[in-house]
């Protein structure tokens, strides 16, 4: 199958790779089909490209790349939408993949929504943006920002200047 996207040009995809979002995403309730895309030069970023709107593409990160000990607490309603048993949380990496949507704005550090991960069921290709209940995570978790890498510490004694 082919789809013309705004950011990637025309992409060729396997229909099996598409994820169905039965409820859309908050703010994008009518967007039901997304395709995850990876590009070698920007790993570990995963792009979630809408197959209904060529210009809609979310930047996401697997939650474990942000928070290694990430824990899910998906509501029964969302587990039902995912076609998963309601009495236990799914296993990340095997049954489901969890992606945090990243917001990059001018003038402040990029943030990731760890409170509401996009949960993709790898077995039946259904997905929801699950707003976790009783979760310690923030919807604006800060990511490493640009422009302050390896700051040269001028006051820690490593500099050549010695105060007398």
């Amino acid at each position: 199958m082919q789809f013309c996207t705004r950011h990637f040009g025309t992409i060729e995809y396997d229909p099996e790779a598409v994820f169905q979002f039965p409820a859309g995403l908050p703010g994008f309730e009518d967007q039901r089909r997304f395709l995850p895309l990876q590009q070698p030069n920007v790993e570990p970023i995963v792009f979630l490209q809408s197959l209904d709107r060529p210009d809609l593409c979310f930047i996401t990160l697997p939650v474990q790349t942000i928070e290694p000990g990430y824990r899910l607490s998906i509501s029964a309603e969302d587990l039902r939408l995912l076609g998963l048993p309601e009495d236990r949380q799914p296993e990340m990496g095997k049954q489901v993949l969890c992606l945090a949507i990243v917001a990059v704005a001018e003038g402040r550090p990029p943030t990731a929504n760890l409170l509401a991960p996009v949960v993709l069921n790898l077995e039946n290709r259904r997905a929801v943006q699950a707003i976790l209940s009783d979760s310690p995570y923030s919807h604006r978790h800060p990511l490493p920002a640009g422009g302050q890498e390896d700051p040269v510490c001028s006051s820690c004694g490593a500099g050549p200047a010695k105060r007398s």
Partner: protein
Amino acid sequence: MLIVRRRAGQAVLIGDQVEIHVLEIAPGRVKLGVVAPREIPVLRAEVKLTRETNLAAAQAVPAEKLAELARRLRKEAPARGAAALGPAGEPSEQP
């Protein structure tokens, strides 16, 4: 903000049509029941926050900013990040 003390089993009325019942109180959490007409959406506040962050996240991002973010993430967590996506979509051309 109006502050009202309520016990389990008691309720608060908003206008003629909205009722908020305190069903259960446990340490650190409370269970509420809301009765409201169909045309009044009842949402957890997090849904609104997520909608706002989704709308902000849907803005286009310059390629160099993305590359920079990816580089920093790789530096912080070089061992993690390989995502098992199953049959993958591959862009047929670079953006």
